[in-house]
């Protein structure tokens, strides 16, 4: 457990400044053990967070991050070990109010009630009451407005919370946490559903709050973000604490090595282009126009990987969804592997030879309570039997092959997908896209919320698929996804504005996605 350990006595940076020495840590957890039945989720884990710092917690899926968050927020009591806030022992598990004064967590899953207004969400269960004992709505709205403007959150307290964007929702949840008096906030993968511009706004907000004395624990799969915003990083692996170090002193390769337990190749080797111009194009789109995009013409050759980049709202997702028939275009044609297919029909697109990884696996990707075998073969009933009957044997054989092919970590193909970790869930979605040996593979944000290893694996699988002559279209704003593309088409405000061939620099692509003309 002490392998690779260093910088245990924190904080190295602020040790001479005084406050770092005298102030007790905001939170200190030591020797935390937590078991769920036979599984050990945390094995003597610990973390110490000093006031005012932004502390990153990283680890692959299943490293014990989520369990630590539950322990730190008092939602789960550890089997062993102690948690202290500012030097005092943690409150009793039942005393939710006391916990809330110390710590708050903004989860990936919303804790906002969509049917109620923002104001009511902020003051749920602590409404403003008048002398009659009835709720005074005007007072509450005013308090909500005060709270939101005090933390410069630009949201109308009267809006139903369900209408908020992910970004606004996070700000509202942060403001709510602060209103309880908590000055320590855990952000659980806050950037997973945000586009580049929104991530920048979130980081600005974090820096602002940091200056005002708020301490953050930041959980993310994106190492880039950790280097950008965090001071200290703690790595967990296999339910154990591996190391804690200042971010500035830890090179990226070492961080990845600590997370995976092995030295990672520093850079993925350059992929050889596998474009095959001799056969029909995998995808040919002409003058496609619809809600959110217009005049899109693009071609994906057999064996070619084409990126469709752009910020959120640029129309990249809409174009990709139109290609696979989830949306109906107003005008234009879509040809998959030479077959013009009826626009706006998913079955037609699948029949023409498309495989598809949708935008959000939780919503459109899989049926959580159905088994891996059922999910992976959902779109290929034809392969499983004739006349509408499904052969369970054939299904399981096909599923076993897919599980092996995609290295999905599971005891068997009959496990429900909801029991898998995020990375493996995404692999199931990918397995389904590949189940029918597609001529065209359309991927939207294929590595969102997926850990480093699974991400490399998934992208490697995409490259492998392209080698077999399949055309690939990747709609994403994730630079790592786009790096492997032969060409990247950049969309801005619904139009394809530029085409960048392989070998680009990050800042060129980002500038194009943000609509900045670097030559001007």
């Amino acid at each position, binding site marked *: 457990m002490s392998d690779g350990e260093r910088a245990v006595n924190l904080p190295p940076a602020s040790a001479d400044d005084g406050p770092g020495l005298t102030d007790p840590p905001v939170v200190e957890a030591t020797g935390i053990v937590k078991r769920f039945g036979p599984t050990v989720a945390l094995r003597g884990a610990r973390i110490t967070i000093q006031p005012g710092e932004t502390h990153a917690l990283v680890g692959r899926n299943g490293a014990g991050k989520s369990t630590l968050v539950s322990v730190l927020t008092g939602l789960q009591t550890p089997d062993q070990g102690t948690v202290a806030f500012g030097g005092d022992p943690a409150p009793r598990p039942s005393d*939710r109010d006391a916990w809330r004064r110390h710590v708050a967590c903004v989860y990936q899953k919303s804790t*906002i009630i*969509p049917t109620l207004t923002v104001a009511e969400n902020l003051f749920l*269960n602590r409404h403003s009451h008048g002398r009659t004992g009835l709720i005074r709505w005007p007072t509450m709205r005013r308090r909500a407005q005060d709270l939101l403007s005090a933390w410069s959150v630009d949201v109308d307290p009267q809006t139903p919370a369900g209408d908020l964007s992910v970004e606004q929702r996070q700000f509202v949840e942060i403001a709510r946490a602060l209103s309880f008096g908590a000055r320590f906030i855990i952000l659980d993968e806050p950037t997973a559903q945000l586009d580049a511009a929104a991530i920048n706004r979130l980081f600005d907000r974090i820096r602002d709050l940091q200056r*005002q004395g708020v301490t953050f624990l930041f959980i993310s799969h994106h190492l880039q973000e950790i280097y950008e915003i965090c001071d200290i990083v703690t790595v967990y692996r296999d339910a154990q604490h591996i190391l804690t170090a200042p971010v500035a002193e830890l090179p990226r390769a070492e961080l990845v090595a600590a997370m995976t337990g092995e030295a990672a190749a520093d850079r993925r080797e350059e992929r050889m282009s596998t474009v095959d111009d001799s056969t029909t194009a995998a995808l040919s789109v002409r003058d496609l126009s619809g809600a959110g995009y217009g005049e899109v013409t693009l071609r994906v050759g057999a064996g070619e990987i084409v990126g469709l980049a752009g910020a959120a709202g640029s129309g990249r997702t809409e174009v990709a969804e139109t290609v696979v028939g989830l949306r109906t275009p107003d005008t234009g044609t879509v040809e998959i592997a030479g077959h013009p297919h009826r626009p706006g029909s998913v079955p037609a697109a699948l029949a023409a030879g498309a495989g598809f990884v949708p935008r959000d696996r939780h919503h459109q990707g899989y049926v959580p309570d159905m088994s891996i075998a059922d999910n992976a073969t959902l779109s290929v009933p034809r392969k499983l039997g004739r006349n509408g009957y499904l052969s369970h044997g054939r299904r399981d054989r096909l599923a076993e092959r897919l599980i092996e092919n995609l290295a999905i970590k599971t005891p068997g193909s009959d496990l429900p997908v909801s029991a898998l970790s995020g990375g493996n869930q995404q692999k199931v979605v990918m397995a389904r896209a590949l189940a029918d040996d597609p001529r065209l593979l359309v991927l939207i944000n294929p590595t969102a919320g997926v850990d480093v290893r699974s991400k490399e694996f998934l992208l490697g699988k995409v490259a492998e698929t392209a080698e077999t002559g399949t055309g690939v279209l990747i709609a994403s704003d994730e630079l790592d996804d786009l790096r492997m593309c032969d060409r990247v088409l950049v969309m801005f405000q619904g139009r394809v504005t530029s085409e960048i061939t392989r070998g680009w620099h990050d800042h060129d692509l980002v500038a194009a996605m943000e609509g900045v003309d670097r030559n001007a």
Partner: protein
Amino acid sequence: MPETVLADTPASTAAEPRGRQITLLGGRIPLARLRELALIPAIVVIAIVGRIVSPVFLQTDNLINVLQTMSEIALLVLAQTMVLIVRKMDLSLESTMGLAPGVAAWLVGPTGAGHGLGLLPGAWAIPLTLAVGTLIGVVNALLIIRFGLSGFIVTLGMLIVLRGVLTGISGGQTFFQLPQSMLYPGTAEWFGIPASIWICLVLFTVAIVVLGWTGFGRSLYAIGGNVDAAKAAGIRTDRVLWIVIVSGSMLAALAGLLLSGRLASVASAQGNGYIFTVFAAAVIGGISLSGGKGTMFGAFCGILLLFMIQNVLTLAGVPAQWTGALNGLIILVALTISRVTGGKVQE
């Protein structure tokens, strides 16, 4: 702005620039309120149509008649609305409405023609009715909340069991010769208007205030909207669910009492089939079957609208044999209209 807000209390200076905007927002009519009032125009239209069809429609006697006949089922709508807002369902309300007064009539009623046992004096009838309602609610809540069974299936089972028990104790007959105390709520008049109308209106008013202006009422919406978030906010969700389910059954027992009193009897089929109208009224009134949405006022408008339409049809001389088909049709049309005007897909 940020430097002013280090302390817990939001600094007043920070809020000031937005001060004007707040009054502006406060003066604005929230969209939710409009949805709630959406049925008012429909009610007005029906009133005008009714007046054209027959001059009798708008006469006080007729309106009181409409309100009285709907008062019992309106209490079921009230109960179901609470249950739906917390994202549960209670199908057994209609059987509770029959069984609760049925048990009272059985134990209190005279032996002989009334099929009673005559075990208890007449004054016990009302407490007995309410006690039976409470007991049914406790059983439902126990199965649904304590043992985590599906609310739909539990109350479907209870619907059948309770109906069967009433048929069993009554031998499929009707209880007559009810004690005076049971007749009172359904027949008395207060200030010239039947007591059941008063009871119905007062209870709806109380429910509107509770759901809109108390922490308890808002917790119902929170639970229906996102139960985990409600728990995280410190709401004791199980306790709230218990209160909602048990008080729902008590309301159904009270509704049964009013109906029995008005008809001076308890038929073994009392309340049979009411639940469909109850659901229809709630959904027409804007209550979401997926929880967390809708208001008590909307639900009241829903049931009022249904009964007004039925009354207009009766006055227009539509043969009684056709009212069933027309009722169903009205519900479908009303739902379609609210889908078109509300814009959201109904679950």
